[in-house]
């Protein structure tokens, strides 16, 4: 096939993936509200089909550009969205068996892809010489994987956790007020839990499709969301660390210094430190729960700056990156 044919295959597969995700997202929200098991099955099937098409889009893009398909913002964003969806399907659906969050995750992926297609689309082109090193290829893949997981943990699960935990707190206050009115003993507060505790009463499958809306409202219990956020971020942290190290090794080989505080390096450092702060907060008395979640939100903001603001507006050696 020619470059042009690969390019159009890639674009068509990208669009097909976007449409599949979109429909799947709507079905997931339907499932969140009404808990029909068939709807969930169709949603997950569509998301999987979308994922396969998305993989085809990325591979075809690589064939068209005759290099690895992660060389500019459009390609980074596409790969990031792909990893967000894959991360959700494999980690959250398969491993943690939480099925109700697909709509939010797909929404995030769709947004990323739409922004990529509208603002960052570039035809396939070769890389500038400095980027033609296997360290940069490793660095970029690690950075995108880390970003995708950080985004999932801090940009999707953390806000859901904050929302749900506020609902639960309100409900507890209401129950306590009612109980006080009745002159009864107030219910025990929800257990704080240590770093990585299972919430009381939560077992695998507690959120099974068949188990209609729970007493917690539509979303899984706040503690499940908190733990999901923590696990995703803790999983991403070493990957991000590796990305920063690989970047430093590459910078050493290409420019003769492993660290120069250029904007990209500075912001990936800030993101790293803030998420280290989140991991610490989770283990610090008085910071668990909502305060730690706020640190994660700051981490997400920092990730967005690292990814969008620095890549697009700020000039540094890294802006060779093809944007």
């Amino acid at each position, binding site marked *: 096939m020619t470059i042009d044919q690969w390019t159009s295959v890639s674009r068509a597969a990208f669009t097909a993936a976007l449409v599949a995700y979109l429909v799947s997202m709507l079905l997931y929200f339907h499932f969140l509200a009404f808990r029909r098991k068939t709807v969930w099955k169709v949603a997950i099937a569509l998301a999987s089909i979308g994922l396969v098409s998305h993989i085809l889009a990325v591979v075809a893009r690589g064939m068209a550009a005759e290099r690895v398909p992660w060389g500019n913002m459009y390609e980074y964003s596409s790969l990031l969205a792909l990893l967000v969806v894959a991360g959700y399907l494999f980690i959250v659906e398969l491993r943690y068996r939480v099925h109700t969050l697909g709509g939010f995750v797909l929404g995030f992926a769709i947004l990323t892809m739409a922004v990529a297609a509208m603002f960052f689309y570039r035809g396939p082109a070769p890389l500038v010489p400095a980027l033609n090193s296997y360290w940069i290829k490793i660095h970029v893949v690690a950075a995108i994987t880390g970003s995708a997981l950080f985004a999932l943990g801090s940009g999707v699960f953390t806000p859901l956790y904050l929302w749900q935990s506020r609902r639960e707190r309100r409900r507890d206050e209401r129950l306590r007020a009612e109980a006080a009115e009745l002159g009864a003993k107030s219910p025990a507060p929800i257990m704080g839990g240590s770093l990585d505790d299972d919430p009381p009463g939560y077992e695998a499958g507690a959120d099974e499709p068949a188990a209609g809306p729970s007493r917690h409202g539509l979303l899984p219990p706040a503690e499940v969301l908190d733990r999901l956020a923590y696990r995703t971020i803790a999983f991403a*942290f*070493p990957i991000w660390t590796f990305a920063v190290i690989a970047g430093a090794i590459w910078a050493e080989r*290409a420019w*003769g210094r492993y660290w120069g*505080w250029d904007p990209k390096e500075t912001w990936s450092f800030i993101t790293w430190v803030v998420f280290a702060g989140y991991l610490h907060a989770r283990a610090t008395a008085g910071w668990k729960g909502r305060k730690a979640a706020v640190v994660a939100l700051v981490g997400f903001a920092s990730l967005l700056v690292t990814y969008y603001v620095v890549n697009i507006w700020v000039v540094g050696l890294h802006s060779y990156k093809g944007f």
Partner: protein
Amino acid sequence: MRTALVLLLLLAAASVVGSLIPQHGVADPRIAAMELDHPLRYDIYEALGFFDVYGSVWFTLIYGLLLVSLVACLFPRTRALLRSIRSRPQPVHELDGFRHYAEREVAADPARAIARARKVLRRRFFRVSKTNGATRALAAEKGIAREAGSLIFHWSFFLILIGIALGKGTGFAGNAVIVEGETWTEAHANYDGNIVEGRFFNEAHTGLQLDVRDFQVTYREDGSAEDFVTRGEVTVPGNRAEPVEISVNHPAAVGGVKLYQFGFGWAPIVEVRDGSELIASRPVPFSQLASPPGADPRALPWNGVVRLPSLRPQVGIELSLWPDSSALVQFLETGESSPMLRPVDPVMTYVVYRGALRLKSVETSNELDKSALQVWKRGAVGLGGSEEIGNGLTISFPELREYTVLHVSRDRGVMIMLVAAVLVLAGLVAALYSSRRKLWVQAEPVETGTVLKVGGFALQRRMQFEEEFSRLVDELAGGSEKRAGIR
């Protein structure tokens, strides 16, 4: 922990300041612009060290405090870890209170069953309690890597500090501009002032000599550079010359320094004659102006200057290089310049000024100080040609060469940093991807053999431990007997 957390967040906030305000070494032109346009703001920032945040007193203070708090918290944790490595898990009496609990009947007698359990657990990398006398019970645990990894991770920061202090303190870094066919000597004066030397650098430059024979750029069809390579010979004092090749991403390491391909440019040889006397003859490294946002940097014209301070009045010549005359015509007609990629039939345009040059002691700038100069003549000269300027002066353009820009640096801390990076990563993976599990086994004799009681819990990843626990129980109760039966 709270101190560490607050300090970490402070470190992040301080780094944000450094990314918002232009920094020395990264954005010097913007700092210079601020000095002119907003002198008050410039003075305040300068006083607060905002132009060098990462080297400032307060940034150092934050990470210094972080490291102090780190030591304070690492010593007790390390001592506790060493103690728990030396001791073994202790058997307990009541097992059925644990989160996970199971009983199985096996045919073997209690001592044999416990001995087997010991073997099975050892094979699965559990640390098992000592045998001494206890033939009916054992305790086992796994996942000490979690704490050990976390400690390795945190201790590595001190190694990083050592690596930075050694590398930057005793090292130097600068750029060398070398025209094809010339020899460059590694010495302070030959960096044209753009060198940074460490606080403990003892001025012992290597004196190595680099003879650049050839510089080549390969272009793709679309005109973008695919690769650039500098070839030549390098001589470390006292040794024989050796061939060397330096290209992007492939630095050369010679005599304790590293040479990196950094950039390149055009260096036309310009000769000026006063009558028949040759008063200037050298390659002039041309440069491009900083590219305006959005412009294709390759298409910017290349400019250079020649200064003739010996003439009265003094003369300065501004030169621009064009790939061929049609590119020049295009520029004159439309204002659009075309990329100077290959010399097709190169032409230089010149503007000659007369007056006072106002030279500084070291003059490396590619711009004339025109405050005391008047335009005298304009013209163009092609490759191989000569043009009369007037008053007996002629300018000629006998040859077009390229120059290479090499980044030269010495950093003795790089290996330490690499080791530290590996430790950081290994520590993190161990700390964040592993979990601590504890298990107890008791054997009680019954008529048909033994009842094995197994209890245990995990401190992290409890859902996964549920599966692991039932697998372990099966194995302890004779998974291998079953396997033996199949065989």
